């Protein structure tokens, strides 16, 4: 994108604009699609270690079946050669089921083709919690838990930090400002790190809050109590994420606002004696909306995927712990599905941001008229 040199007039001008917009859209979408394709295929290659995981999986299959057959008293008296034949038969069935008898390169393109069509297919090892093998069901089942937890935490962090940052940008150098600056490095520690301490303190030393899970066991039968229980279980993980992000977030937004607050037009507004709330809204916040919206949009798609370790620490049944299991199982379709959905979301968000920028910022125009 670049700023247009001059606005054309009349019908031919509108057609040219339309042509530019269509061309830009196609090029942009094509580029994004190519990026997504490369990203997904790289994921397929990495998740399968270029096909070497096949060997590993066959070893695992063989060991699991051999151990199961040996442990089963029904096969105890079988001659060993017959037992080995039985094991081999079962191993071959698994190999065929998982298509490990086909070359990896062929499967990798099948995976890619399926993924790009958003045909998430069937998991190889995993099931949804309720028992479905469909990858979409597996993901959809965990999505609400992740959206709830990470949505809450990220919204809290985002809006709290924006408003506190605006407040601090007006009180540059105050005691509170200095405290926030001093605490900013505390965000070097991830959320799960704070989570461990919060569990120790608020679940075990002072048992006020549950140490993990999404709801008490067994889950309450009436909806209100259920919701309250979920809220209670969210306090510690949300608190952990909030603690680990809030100070660096305030610090960075406050710095951002400070830079914009020293622009000439803001100084002019101050000189004119406009009220500070009006200056913040009209002269600081509005021109900085595009990066804020970008940050907000990226935060939203960042919800996808959850956080593996944090969910493990809090025993939260979200997409992070799902990814953890999928990696453990080497369940390629589930891993690919997680990535391809994120990739598409990211690509769509980037594209939409291009459009939103043009709407929010009069200086930005679609079509690359400056070329």
């Amino acid at each position, binding site marked *: 994108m670049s700023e247009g040199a001059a606005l054309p007039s009349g019908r031919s001008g509108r057609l040219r604009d339309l042509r530019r917009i269509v061309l830009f859209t196609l090029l942009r979408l094509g580029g994004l699609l190519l990026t997504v394709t490369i990203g997904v295929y790289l994921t397929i290659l990495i998740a399968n270690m270029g096909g070497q995981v096949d*060997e*590993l999986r*066959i070893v695992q299959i063989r060991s699991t079946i051999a151990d199961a057959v040996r442990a089963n*008293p029904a096969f105890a008296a079988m001659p060993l050669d017959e037992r080995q034949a039985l094991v081999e*038969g079962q191993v071959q069935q698994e190999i065929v089921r998982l298509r490990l008898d086909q070359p990896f390169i062929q499967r990798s393109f099948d995976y890619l083709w399926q993924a790009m069509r958003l045909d998430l297919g069937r998991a190889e090892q995993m099931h949804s919690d309720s028992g479905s093998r469909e990858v979409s069901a597996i993901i959809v089942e965990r999505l609400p838990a992740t959206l709830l937890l990470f949505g809450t935490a990220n919204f809290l962090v985002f809006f709290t930090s924006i408003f506190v940052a605006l407040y601090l940008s007006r009180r540059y150098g105050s005691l509170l400002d200095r405290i926030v600056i001093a605490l900013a490095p*505390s965000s070097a520690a991830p959320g799960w790190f704070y989570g461990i301490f919060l569990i120790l303190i608020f679940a075990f030393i002072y048992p006020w809050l549950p140490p993990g899970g999404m709801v008490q066991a067994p889950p309450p039968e009436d909806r209100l109590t259920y919701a309250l229980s979920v809220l209670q279980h969210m306090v510690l993980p949300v608190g952990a994420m909030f603690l680990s992000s809030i100070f660096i977030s305030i610090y960075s937004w406050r710095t951002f606002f400070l830079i914009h607050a020293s622009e000439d037009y803001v100084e002019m507004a101050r000189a004119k004696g406009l009220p500070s709330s009006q200056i913040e809204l009209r002269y600081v916040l509005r021109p900085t909306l595009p990066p804020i919206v970008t940050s907000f949009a990226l935060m939203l798609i960042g919800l996808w995927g959850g956080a593996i370790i944090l969910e493990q620490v809090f025993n939260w049944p979200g997409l992070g712990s799902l990814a953890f299991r999928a990696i453990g199982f080497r369940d390629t379709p589930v891993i690919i599905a997680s990535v391809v959905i994120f990739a598409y979301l990211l690509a769509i968000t980037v594209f939409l941001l291009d459009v939103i920028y043009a709407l929010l910022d009069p200086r930005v125009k679609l079509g690359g008229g400056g070329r």
Partner: protein
Amino acid sequence: MALAIVVVAVVAWRWSGDTPAPDVAAAPAAMAGVDIGDRRGALVDQVVFAQESDLGKVAELIESGTHQLFAQGVSNATVFRRIRDSLGIRYSNAFGSSAELTLNPAGPRFNDGRINPFHVPAMREALNWLVDRRYVAEELYGGLAVPRTLAINTVFPDYARLAEVARTLELRYQHDPERARAAIEREMTALGAARVNGTWVHEGAPVRISILIRTDDQRRRIGDYVGNLLEGLGFEVERLYRAADEASRIWIAGDPAAGRWHIYTGGWVSTLIQRDLSDNFAYYYTPLGRPEPLWQVYRPDPELQTLAERLQRADYTTWDERQAMMSRALELSMTDSVRIWLVDVVNAQPHAANVDLTSDLAGGFGGSALWAYTLRYTDRVGGNVVVALPTLIAEPWNPVAGSNWIFDRMIMRGLTDAVVLPDPYTGLFWPQRIAAAEVAVQDDLPVIQTLDWLTLVREREIVVPADTWIAWDGAASRWISVGERHPDGLTARTRVTVRYEDDFLEHRWHDGTQVSLADLVVPMILAFDRADPESRLYDPAFQLVFDVFMQHFKGMRIVSEAPLVVELYSDQVYPDAEAILAARAPAVAPWHTLALGMLAERQGELAFSSNKADRNEVDWMSYIAGPSLAILARHLSEARASGFVPYAEVAERYLREGEAAARYAALGDWYSERRHFWVDNGPFYLHSVHPVERSVVLRRFTDFPDRADKWLRFDRPRIPALELDGPMIVRSDEAPEFELCITFDDAPYPEADIERAAYLLFDGRGRLRLEGEAESVGDGCWRIVLAAEQIAALGTGANSLEVAVTSVRVSLPAFATHAFATVAAQAGQVTQPAQAAQAATTGPTP
């Protein structure tokens, strides 16, 4: 601020001291003084299973009262110490896993020309003296392990049965670093290696030993320990730290001749007590064990190979012959030593101090068949227990080929009522729904009977009656009899006759309907149907298993319907009559719930097995959650409308009047109320399932037929406590007497429960000089009297009398030792071994 909060809180915690234990800590472990009244079924009202995979939270969760039980064993020493030191927590021990060193015997040279010292059996054998198993158990495992020297697990019955041989070999291979050093020097020199500046060098290059070290658990420390020992002996050591997956590619899948590793820190797990370990030799020491490349380079001594093969196929005619073969195989396996057994790992099974239940000696809580019958608060009847599982509903549940995950199976065991139940301490089986049983075996089979609730008879020939069912004709929907299939007659190696309890068919399923004979017949037909390629229920994955079953199945017939008596004929034999019966006795399953799954699979909408589900690209059937439920519910409506009875041509004969309608109506009500189709007959019923929230709720089944305290006699393993006393100094002309007192909980151990009290006499050089049996003198006390000639035969010096006691109540043997010195009858006289006494000694000298 965040860090400040954390620091302040941690400091506050440090100052506040340990968390006080809950009041329940002082509660007694048993239910003494608690009146259960006429209570039936379970001793608690509700059990909630919740997922919690973080073992680090065990102590805190139990102490805080949110959880009462962790079904996952603890083998981490730090966590264990926390549990052990807590007043609010108790624990049981499970011994099902073990650690060893797997050696790579390829060679004599690897593919790249390097010499492999462990190709030489004597080099491998020397490692037995090099490692200090006690150190491994006590230091590396922090006491959560017991030393193990032999190819048989120290907690399983075969170890107790072979206690004398085992003890002899353990003493022969006890830690002796000097002996190890000497043997290794001798063998390395023979291989052409030399020590240069303290390092072994072969053909100009240092001898490097690669140790493949598992990083997942305590085996990391074992690998480092062994590496240090070998470095101390002059080897260059390469430590390859690998997680399970990476390691398996190298040691299992890789070619051992490639020389990528010499030693692997192996581990094995058993979740149930294995009463017959006779195939361990073939499995662990011969190429027959597994088809992987490592096993194919095993070259055992021909005698070991033969013994291993014979033991595996039970090629012996008497029990004594088997024991002799096992003894010899144990000895040969030690000289072969492709594995150096180190320890049997103890898994602590934590629970709240005021909660108790029966834990399986091998499988812990997760493997216990009696948990549902014995789970209780020690100070009250009823209540709610929350059990933490590392995972639950790992796979879909269905009654035919559903989830086989250990913790899912644990929950399922609480929902079902088996006809026999395994003894958690011996692995033998006890009757639950059987009034009487007889096991008949051909008279040349070495089968033993331990428990007296069944009868073992031997017959020269066991003829299968002509009207016995032997196969299912799917096309005609009828049984095929032995008379049709084998007009010339058929014989079997075993016959099991089971008479069920008189009121067996009056019991209730969880949905309130009454058990009928169709619940026994339909599951049997279904098994045949699933292996019939012409059937729509055919499952190729099941075919393999079914073929094995049919190799030894010789028929079944219902002898009587009131009382229910069933006969089963088979060629499959186990050493224990109880195990033969347990493998044969048919169980019941509610035919009306099976029917829904059968309809769904026939329509191609769902499949019982994972394999078939994937082949047909449908969902693996779940009776408890997910998209399967809507399909099953639809089939319930259809079946209810049509009165569908599976295999009606046969099954209808066994139905009560109006049974089909009553069953489907009850199932409809059940589903409306509970939203699942899991109907069973155990002490608990499945109240609710919360798959996303990761919890499952079980509630007490009030119509359960048995008293709630029926299985409480299995509260703890009756491991004998021994006290061996006798003279410290014995003159060579004396006949000393030693007293052995066997107790449990300070009370005399019943003599009837003592299987054997054997003694072993070792001289000062650790040689076995004498063995025999102690004789009972009553009140839990036993006597060992040695003759003067036997004492004289020892010569002068220090000796050790070892006692091994085995009980029919627990497979774990108990040992005691008494050291004494023999002195000459007269000062200055050196006693010479007497010829007569020499003849009484047994066992080879090392």
